[in-house]
């Protein structure tokens, strides 16, 4: 029995919220204190890899639409690439701040995927609106890993990155398969597609 799309979105929202709280805690205490315990240091690369694997699972079940399949597969690859790079950073193999550019690229690809795979207009339904909003949020959030690569000593990037994931989590929790947005719902929303 497959879950509805909104159920999968809420599960990811919960995962992203935990991920965001961990990032926020790291920003507050600083990476030196945060990485004192190895399990904590490996927590967020592991979450990224775990999320990437689950996105592959979602991609497998997104065969109802080529765009959905491609978008979820792209997110899966972006999450796994960012996870692998973070694993290298935590292990001390990758020390250059420029590795943060991989995370920036992953966010950009994810944001664009959100924007292109939602074929409905902003005000079609809440899910369409939130897909656009999440897409643009991720595209703007590229600023944070980009800043971390250029000005690694500024802690504002870490806070901004954590708050971005809290925002994405709230947006995903607000997602419903069919629900009005700003009191408007297209009369076509929620109808079975015409074969």
């Amino acid at each position, binding site marked *: *029995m497959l*879950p*509805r799309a909104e*159920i999968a979105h*809420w*599960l990811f*929202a*919960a995962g992203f*919220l*935990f991920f965001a*709280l*961990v990032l*926020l*805690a790291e920003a*507050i*205490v600083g990476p*030196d*204190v*945060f990485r*004192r*315990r190895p399990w*904590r240091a490996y*927590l967020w690369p592991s979450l990224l890899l775990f999320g990437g694997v689950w996105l592959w699972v979602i991609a497998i079940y997104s065969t109802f639409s080529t765009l959905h399949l491609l978008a979820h597969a792209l997110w899966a690859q972006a999450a796994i690439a960012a996870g692998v790079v973070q694993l290298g950073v935590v292990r001390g193999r990758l020390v250059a701040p420029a590795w943060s550019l991989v995370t920036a690229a992953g966010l950009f690809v994810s944001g664009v995927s959100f924007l292109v795979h939602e074929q409905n207009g902003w005000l079609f339904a809440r899910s369409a609106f939130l897909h656009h909003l999440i897409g643009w949020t991720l595209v703007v959030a590229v600023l944070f890993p980009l800043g971390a690569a250029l000005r690694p000593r500024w802690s504002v990037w870490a806070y901004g990155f954590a708050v971005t994931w809290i925002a994405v989590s709230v947006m995903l*929790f607000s997602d419903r398969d069919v629900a009005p947005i700003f009191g408007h719902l297209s009369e076509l929303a929620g109808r079975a597609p015409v074969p």
Partner: protein
Amino acid sequence: MNELVTPRTKAAEEPRVARRGLRVLTVEAIGPVTILGGIVWAFAQPYRVTFFYPEGKGAWDWFVQPPLLVVLVGLLFALVVAPGLVDDLERSSHEDAAAG
């Protein structure tokens, strides 16, 4: 030295200790604030909690109830992540103080 004249090192140490205390407080607050957010959400939108509106709900609706997921995430953070982090922050503070 007397109550009016204190060593300069002590004066410099005080804001650092206060900042460290604020960080401990913030890390400890993240979990409870998240839990509170979930509880407030459950009361604001009770129809999103299957326990309150069980009619016609499937297995996934019982398993995934958004406000309760938020409470669960807050609990997980408060019980698993925050305690060790606070310990390490305080230990780091003591080490800094010992190192002068």
